[in-house]
């Protein structure tokens, strides 16, 4: 892990304190890595990718294609969607060769 990573507390300060132009780093940069984890972009879409565990062939295609790295594989080799970060783009459902993923309104 990189040395210039902020703790969750520091990150919250960063977001909540709304610094002015004097304190903000130059050019709108954030001088540490991994900040995207604190931005839960999963609420962007009403549609979520839902896996049918029976149909899934464990091919891992969805894992590699997810643009938000919101898919991990569980111990059985079946994908788990992280709804904190799944923006509902539907790429996994479109690309699943076994049609095991459906986009559903879970609201």
């Amino acid at each position, binding site marked *: 892990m*990189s*040395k*210039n*990573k902020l703790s969750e507390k520091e990150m919250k300060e960063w977001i909540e304190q*709304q*610094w*002015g*132009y004097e304190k*903000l*780093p*130059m*050019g*709108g*940069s*954030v*001088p*540490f*890595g*991994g*900040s*995207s984890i604190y931005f839960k972009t999963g609420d962007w879409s009403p549609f979520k990718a839902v896996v049918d565990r029976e149909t899934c062939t464990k091919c891992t295609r969805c894992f590699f294609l997810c643009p938000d790295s919101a898919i991990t594989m569980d111990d059985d080799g079946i994908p788990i969607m992280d709804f904190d970060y799944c923006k509902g783009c539907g790429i996994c459902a479109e690309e699943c060769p076994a049609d095991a993923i459906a986009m559903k309104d879970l609201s």
Partner: protein
Amino acid sequence: MTKASSTPGKRVGMTGDEAVANSMAVINPDVVAAYPITPQTIIVEHFSDFVNDGEVDTEYITVESEHSAMSACVGASATGARVFTASASQGIALMYEILFIASASRLPIVMAVANRALSGPINIHGELTDQTVCRDTGWISMFSESAQEAYDAGFIAFKIGEHPDVSLPVMYGLDGFILTHALEGVYPLDRKFVKKYLPEREMVHPTIPGNPVSSGLLALQNYYMEIKYQQEIAMDAARKVIPKAFEEFGDLTGRYYKNVEEHQMEDAEVAFVTMGALAGTAKYVVDKLRKAGEKVGMLKVKTFRPFPEEDLAKALKGIETIGVIDRDLTFGAPGPALYTDIKTSLYDHKERPQVLGFVAGLGGRDVAQDEFNYIYKQVLKNKGAEKSVPVEWVGLRK
């Protein structure tokens, strides 16, 4: 071909484009990403020779468009590298989107602009509009009068842009064909000079392995204004840094530049004000008019952004009327770029000259002695006019 390691002090013949390429060979930038376009082509062509012959250590990225060229420059500069590119006209128009990103990301990329008229109608010749339209991109913007000035501009541009208080990209223009393709005598510099004048770039937060930085981020209602204001502060800082960069350059080379260069301004009653290669012709005409007993001077605006309001007001003290000659155009505005900026800058000064505007030399049309003499006649004719005088197009057929 001129070697990158030319002997300083010895005058060498080169075109404006070759001068720019040669200056970059001496600077030895880390990365150059560029796409050829007339009349800039010789710059990148000639520089690629230096790369091929191993005279520079530069990583030369060939790209498929100017949009990609500037994008590659942004990426390279974000790692802390010293980055150069060059373009013109349609090329600048194509990279326009990325110009704003370069300045907002505070990346001191340096770009030579072989100033050329924009299409349409399609034209390849000299005009400054391709650079004047970039006035709101957040780049520092300068113009050159000669091949020597274009040669020197590269060194000065990196010096200013990379200053930690500034950290902004810099573009410098040289008139298409008039400077880019005309052969002139140029005094080259060497790497010893670069070592003294241009220390290695130091970046605050470079994006390098092991040091992750998020840049080019989304900043909406809650942050956008603060980040834009930071750019304004940087431009203001450039006002202080630029004269020092000129002075230091002058102390080492004997060639002193100024935001606003004055020529025959002592006891002058009227003056020409212009930018780029037109300044050379203006000086020549002024000298001739002076010999004929006319009290005329001329000002060359070298630095266009940040606009040198104070220098201009100072230089114009006591002048009755000026004729501003723009080789650029804006439609439906109070006047062309330099004219409107000068008028705006002078508004708050109690003692200010009458400002007359002229548009000349668009699309590379010649602006020679006759045209300047005509402008001078018009300036005298309208001197002291009570009604406002509309901007006049010089050399236009009805």
